[in-house]
């Protein structure tokens, strides 16, 4: 397949028309649906948000973003750029205790969802 145009959006390749009928949702998709339908996803989001704010993670990320914006000029930054800037740092600086607690809670949900 020729790709002589640079893609501006990251998109998975268009699926072939032939296996449209046999489409099976992935395990991840199934779990995601269960999370949303049960309301657990929203609860988890709030929980994570709260914990990350309390421990200063959010402020740390905001500081990094603001420094980057100041350097680049405030009209010279895209949202994608900013997300790319803080994603690796963000993942790396999650406190272990928060990560462990959240993972535990998610695993519990997965087990109950599987039953």
């Amino acid at each position, binding site marked *: 397949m020729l790709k002589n145009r640079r893609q501006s959006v990251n998109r998975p390749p268009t699926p072939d028309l032939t296996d449209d009928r046999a489409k099976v949702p992935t395990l991840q998709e199934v779990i995601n649906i269960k999370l949303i339908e049960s309301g657990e*996803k929203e609860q988890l989001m709030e929980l994570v948000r709260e914990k990350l704010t309390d421990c200063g993670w959010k402020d740390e990320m905001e500081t990094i*973003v603001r420094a980057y*914006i100041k350097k680049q000029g405030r009209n010279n930054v895209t949202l994608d750029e*900013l*997300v790319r800037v803080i*994603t690796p740092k963000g993942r790396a600086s999650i406190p272990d205790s928060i990560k462990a607690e959240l*993972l535990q809670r*998610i695993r519990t949900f997965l087990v109950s969802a599987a039953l």
Partner: protein
Amino acid sequence: NMFFVTLVKFPMSIVVCVQLALHVFGDLLDSITVDVASECHRIARLGLERNLDEEEEELRLSAQARARIADPSNNVEANGKYVVDIFGQTHPPVANEIFDCMNCGRSIMAGRFAPHLEKCMGKGRKARLKATRSSTAAQNRYSRGSPVSTYSPYSSTASINRLSNGNPRAATGECSNGTVEEP
């Protein structure tokens, strides 16, 4: 390699569960990251973060001003009206903006306004001294204050302030007169 060791030692379902949990957690984290970036992006693009540009501009201006002060050639008063202030501006010795007197409506030069107003509202010392000498003048002072509730210092209808005796006196000109209403 931990992955293969795990595969051998633990049932597949547990591995899958852990992987799924990590994936879900990663998802949550990504959402929150996007939120944080998005909020900062919005504030930056809307210019709501006032500190950023203003601080830099102020620093720049004050550095400039300091440089100008340090330069001796700017401060010589012998230049007369070409004295330069710290922002590099020159000012004429008499303020030359022209506006309308709110009392009589005439066009007055700013630098000449104070003396004009003295005469316009009844000259400070001379007129008042003359007035207090005669008793009728004292009566005049109290009856003069017909309450003009629509009096506005900035209105151009100066005729409101003229009294029947023809002398332009502001209704709120003298504080000793207690009958005047302030707007």
